[in-house]
C-alpha cells in the first residue's frame, strides 16, 4: 500500500502516481483529500484506492476495474462513466452519482443528491439512505436500489433499466410506472446487500419505463420523397415540397422529421466575393507547392495538436445516423488527405479508429459510446453542446436503427427507441464545464486537445464562455449544417446562419482581447474550397466539411436518413442496405473531393497574392448582397471587380 498526501501533492501529480501504481498492481491510500476534485480519474487497473476523508467532483470517474473506498462524502458525478469496478462511499454523495456508468457497483451508505444514475447504462447503484430529486433520470439500463425514500419524480423519462425503492415512493416521474417484481429480482438484491454487508429487512417497489411518451403510433406514410436538392434554396410560396409536406401531415397529424440542413435561402458564404479579380492568376500551375497550408489545431494550451495538411477537418457525424461502412470510408479518406476525422455521437468503432489517422472523440449528454478506453485512443476530445441544424435540441434514434452492434458500442439495450438528451447531466453552467474539462484532461494526462462544439445560438456569450473555460478550440456550427434527423420546422426556422456566427464569434473575442487564446473551426454548409477560403478570410483557423463528405461518398439526398432505409447504405443500420456500400471505393471518392478542396484553397490563396493561408483576412472579401454586407460589415460591392496590377502580374 502506497500513501499519497493530497495536502502536499497536487491532484494532477497524484493521479499520475495512482495510474503508475495501478500498472504495478500496488494499492493506494489517499490522505488529506479535503474534498478535492478528480481524485483517481482515468485509472484503468484492478487496484484498491482508499480515500481517507471526503472527495470532490468526479471521484473515481472514467475508470475501469478499480475499487474505490471513500470514508466520508463525495461531490457531484461520483464514478462518472465507470466501465467496471466498485465504489463504496461511507457518507453522502452529491448530485448525479453513477452518471452514465457502463457497468460497476456503486454503493452509497448515506443519502445521494439529485438525478442519481442519470443516463446510466448498466451496473448497480445502491443508496442506503434517501435519494433526491429525479433519481434515474433518463436511465437507459442497469438498476438503482434505494433503501430509503425515492425523492420526487423518480424515474423521470427513463427508457430502460429498473429502480427498486425500499422506502417511500414519493412521486413517479414522467413516463415511469410501478410494476410487480419477481422473486429472482428480490433475491438478487438481497444477495447484493449481503455482499456489501448492508442490513435491510424491508420490501421493495419496482419502477420501470411506462412507454407512453415519445412513441410514434403510426409511421409516416411511405411515398417517393423529393430529393433535398430539388427543394433546397427555393423560396416560392407554393411548390412540390410544400404540397408533399401537407399531404404527409394530413395523414400523420404531426410535424415532420427529416435529415439534411435548412432548405431556406439564407445569407451564406456564396454571398461574398473576393475583393480582387482573380481570373488571370488562378491558372498558375502547381499552386499547392506554393502555399503553406499545414495547420495545427488544439495545441495552444500545451496539448498535442491535431496536425492537418490543410486547414480542413471532417465535421462530426455519428455512427448511428451513418452506417459503420460510411464511417470507415470517411476515416480512410481523412487519412489519405491527412486531415482529422470526428466520431460524432454514438461511440468509436474499431474500423473507424484504425482507418483514421487522427480522430476526435465526441462526448454528448447521453454519453452514448463514451468510455475511458476510447478516450485514451483518441487524438482529441470534444464536448458537444449543440449543433447548428437544431441548436438546443436532443435527438431520437428510432428503435429500428438501434441494432445489437450499435447498442453494444453505445452501451445500451438493443432495439429501444433511443432518446439522446439535449443537455449534459454534469454541465448546467459555465462553472460546471470548467470542472468537466479538467476531468477529461486528468483522465488523459493533459495530452489531448479538448474542444467544444457549439451550434450557433447566443454566439457572443457562448464564445466568451468557451475561451474562459479554457477550451483548446471551438467547433462553431452554423444553421446551414445538417443533421441525421430533426423536425423540419426546427431545421428550417431555428438557428443562426454560419456567416453571422463567425462574425459574432470574432467580435466577441475582440471585445475581451482573447483572440489568441483559442482557435475556431467553422462548419455549417461548407461546399468547396471557395467556401473554405472565405471562412478562413473571416477569421476561422480551419473549416470542417460534413454534408459534402457524404455527398462525395455516394449520398443522393433521397431524404430517407431518419427512417434508416438509405438505398446507398449510408444512413442505415440495415445489413441489406449497408452491403451496397463499398468503403474502399467511396473512400477514394471522398479523398478526391478533399484534394479538390486542397487545390481550391491553394489556388485562391495564391491568386490573392499570399504564400500562406494564415495571411488571408477579411480585407480580401466584399459582399455581393445588402444582407451579407449588413451581417459581415464588408463593403457592398456587387459590381465586377477591377483588376489590380498585382493580380495581372500574377
Amino acid at each position, binding site marked *: 500500500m502506497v500513501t499519497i498526501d493530497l*495536502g502536499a501533492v497536487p491532484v494532477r501529480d497524484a493521479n499520475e502516481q495512482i495510474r503508475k501504481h495501478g500498472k504495478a498492481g500496488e494499492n493506494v491510500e489517499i490522505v488529506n483529500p*479535503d474534498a478535492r476534485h478528480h481524485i483517481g480519474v482515468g485509472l484503468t487497473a484492478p487496484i484498491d484506492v482508499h480515500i*481517507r*476523508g471526503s472527495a470532490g467532483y468526479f471521484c473515481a470517474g472514467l475508470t475501469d476495474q478499480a475499487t474505490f473506498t471513500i470514508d466520508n462524502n463525495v461531490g457531484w458525478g461520483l464514478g462518472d462513466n465507470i466501465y467496471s469496478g466498485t465504489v463504496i462511499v461511507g457518507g453522502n454523495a*452529491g*448530485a448525479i452519482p453513477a452518471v452514465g456508468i457502463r457497468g460497476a457497483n456503486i454503493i452509497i451508505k448515506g443519502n445521494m443528491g439529485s438525478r442519481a444514475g442519470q443516463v446510466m447504462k448498466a451496473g448497480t447503484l445502491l443508496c442506503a439512505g434517501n435519494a433526491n*430529486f429525479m433519481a434515474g433520470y433518463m436511465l437507459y439500463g442497469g438498476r438503482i436500489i434505494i433503501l430509503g425514500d425515492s425523492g420526487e419524480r423518480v424515474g423521470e423519462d427513463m427508457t430502460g433499466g429498473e429502480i427498486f425503492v425500499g422506502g417511500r415512493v414519493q412521486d413517479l416521474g414522467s413516463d415511469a410506472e410501478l410494476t410487480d417484481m419477481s422473486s429472482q429480482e428480490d433475491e438478487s438484491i438481497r444477495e447484493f446487500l449481503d455482499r456489501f454487508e448492508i442490513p435491510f429487512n424491508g420490501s421493495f417497489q419496482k419502477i420501470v419505463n411506462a412507454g407512453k411518451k415519445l412513441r410514434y403510433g403510426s409511421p409516416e406514410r411511405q411515398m417517393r420523397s423529393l430529393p433535398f436538392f430539388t427543394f433546397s434554396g427555393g423560396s416560392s410560396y407554393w411548390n412540390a415540397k410544400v404540397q408533399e409536406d401537407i399531404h404527409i401531415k394530413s395523414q400523420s397529424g404531426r410535424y415532420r422529421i427529416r435529415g439534411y440542413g435548412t432548405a431556406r435561402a439564407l445569407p451564406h458564404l456564396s454571398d461574398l466575393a473576393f475583393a480582387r479579380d482573380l481570373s488571370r492568376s488562378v491558372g498558375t500551375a502547381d499552386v499547392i507547392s506554393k502555399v503553406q497550408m499545414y495547420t495545427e489545431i488544439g495545441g495552444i494550451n500545451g496539448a498535442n495538436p491535431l496536425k492537418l495538411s490543410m486547414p480542413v477537418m471532417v465535421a462530426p457525424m455519428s455512427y448511428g445516423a451513418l452506417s459503420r461502412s460510411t464511417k470507415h470510408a470517411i476515416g480512410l479518406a481523412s487519412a489519405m488527405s491527412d486531415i482529422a476525422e470526428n466520431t460524432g455521437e454514438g461511440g468509436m468503432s474499431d474500423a473507424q479508429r484504425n482507418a483514421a489517422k487522427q480522430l476526435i472523440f465526441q462526448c454528448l449528454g447521453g454519453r452514448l459510446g463514451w468510455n475511458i478506453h476510447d478516450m485514451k485512443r483518441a487524438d482529441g476530445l470534444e464536448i458537444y453542446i449543440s449543433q447548428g441544424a437544431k441548436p438546443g435540441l436532443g435527438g431520437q434514434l428510432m428503435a429500428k436503427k438501434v441494432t445489437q452492434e450499435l447498442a453494444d458500442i453505445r452501451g445500451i439495450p438493443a432495439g429501444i427507441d433511443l432518446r439522446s438528451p439535449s443537455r449534459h447531466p454534469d454541465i448546467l453552467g459555465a462553472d460546471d464545464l470548467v470542472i468537466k474539462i479538467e476531468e477529461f484532461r486528468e483522465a488523459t494526462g493533459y495530452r489531448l486537445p479538448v474542444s467544444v462544439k457549439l451550434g450557433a445560438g447566443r454566439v457572443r456569450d457562448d464564445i466568451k464562455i468557451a475561451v*474562459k473555460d479554457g477550451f483548446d478550440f471551438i467547433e462553431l456550427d452554423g444553421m446551414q449544417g445538417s443533421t441525421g434527423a430533426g423536425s423540419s420546422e426546427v431545421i428550417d426556422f431555428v438557428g443562426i446562419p454560419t456567416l453571422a456566427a463567425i462574425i459574432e464569434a470574432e467580435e466577441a473575442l475582440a471585445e475581451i482581447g482573447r483572440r489568441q487564446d483559442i482557435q475556431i473551426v467553422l462548419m455549417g454548409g461548407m461546399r468547396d474550397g471557395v467556401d473554405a477560403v472565405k471562412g478562413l478570410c473571416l477569421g476561422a483557423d480551419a473549416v470542417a466539411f460534413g454534408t459534402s463528405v457524404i455527398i462525395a461518398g455516394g449520398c443522393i439526398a433521397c431524404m430517407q436518413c431518419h427512417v434508416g432505409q438509405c438505398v446507398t447504405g449510408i444512413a442505415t443500420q440495415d445489413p441489406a442496405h449497408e452491403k451496397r456500400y463499398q468503403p474502399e471505393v467511396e473512400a477514394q471518392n471522398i479523398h478526391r473531393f478533399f484534394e479538390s478542396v486542397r487545390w481550391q484553397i491553394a489556388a485562391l490563396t495564391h491568386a490573392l497574392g499570399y504564400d500562406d493561408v494564415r495571411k488571408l483576412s477579411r480585407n480580401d472579401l466584399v459582399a455581393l448582397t445588402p444582407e451579407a454586407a449588413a451581417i459581415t460589415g464588408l463593403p457592398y460591392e456587387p459590381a465586377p471587380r477591377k483588376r489590380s496590377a498585382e493580380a495581372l502580374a500574377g
Partner: protein
Amino acid sequence: MCGIAGILFKHEVPGLTTGQALIDMLDGCQHRGPDSTGFALYDGAHSGQLKLRFFVGEAEAAQEAIARIRRALDEHDAKIVEEETIGNNYRVIVDFNGNLQKFSYAIEHAAKVISIGSSLEIVKDVGSAAEVDARYEVNKVHGSHGLGHVRLATESDVKPEASHPFWATGFADIAIVHNGQITNYWKMRRRLERRGFEFTTDNDSELIAVYLADKLSQGLPLKDALQTSIEDLDGTFSFLVSTDREIGYAKDRLAAKPMVMYENDDLVAVASEEVSLNKLFPGQALQTREPLPGTFATWSRSI
C-alpha cells in the same frame, strides 16, 4: 456562473476573522469563477450612521466622482464623519437620519454605489480572492457573519460593478450572492419597478436582493421571504442572503446548482462545494449536508 460562500460565527472564534474565513472558502472554489471576487461584510454599526461605498475609478475621474458624491451627500443632509479612497473605491461614513430609499436612489445618480448600510460593506473587484484581499484588506474584517462570491462572467462584462455580492438597492444592510439564472427576470423586475423600485444593473442577482428586501420591509421575517422567493422566482438558483443579523439560503426546485453546508458549535458555513468547507478544516472529514431542492433556512447569532 460562479461559486458562493457564506459564514456565520455563533461566537467569537480566536484567530479567525470573518474576512479570512471567506477568503479561504473562496480560494477553494476559485475554479468556478476566475473573473472577479467579492465579499459582503458586517462590522461595527453605529446608530444614526451609514457606511457608503462607491466605485469611483481612478485619477481625475475619481476626483470628479468624489466631488459629485460630496455634493449629493450635502444636498441630502448626510454629514461626512470619515472618508477614504481604497483601490477604485471611495468609502465614506455619514451621519444620516432621513429616508434611505430616496437617499440612495439620488446618490446612485452621483456615482456607482456598491453598498449602503449601517454595518454592511461590500468589497468586490476583478481578480482572485487573494488579489482582492491584497487590495482591500478583507482579512482584517471581523463581524459575526458575511458572504462571498467568485464570478465567471457569462452575459455581462468583467467589470467590478457587475461582480457580486449585490446590494439590495435602496435597502440598508441587505446583500446577496447567487449561483444560477433567474428566467423570469424581466417580469419580476417590471413588477417591482411599477411599485417604484429602481435597479442599477441588469443582473438577475440584484433582482433577488431587491425582491427579498421588499418583503422584509413589509415586515416579513427573512425565512418567509425566502419561502416566497422559491415560489416566485423561476430558473436555476442557489443563493445566500445576509442582513445585519442573519444569513439564509434558498435553493430552486430543480436542484440544478450545488450547495453544501456544515454546522458545528462555533459556526455555520455554506458553500457551493465541500472543498471550500474543507479549506476551513483541512484534513478533517466533515459531516456535511446538501440542502434539498426547493428548501430554505436562516441562521442568526441569537438562535
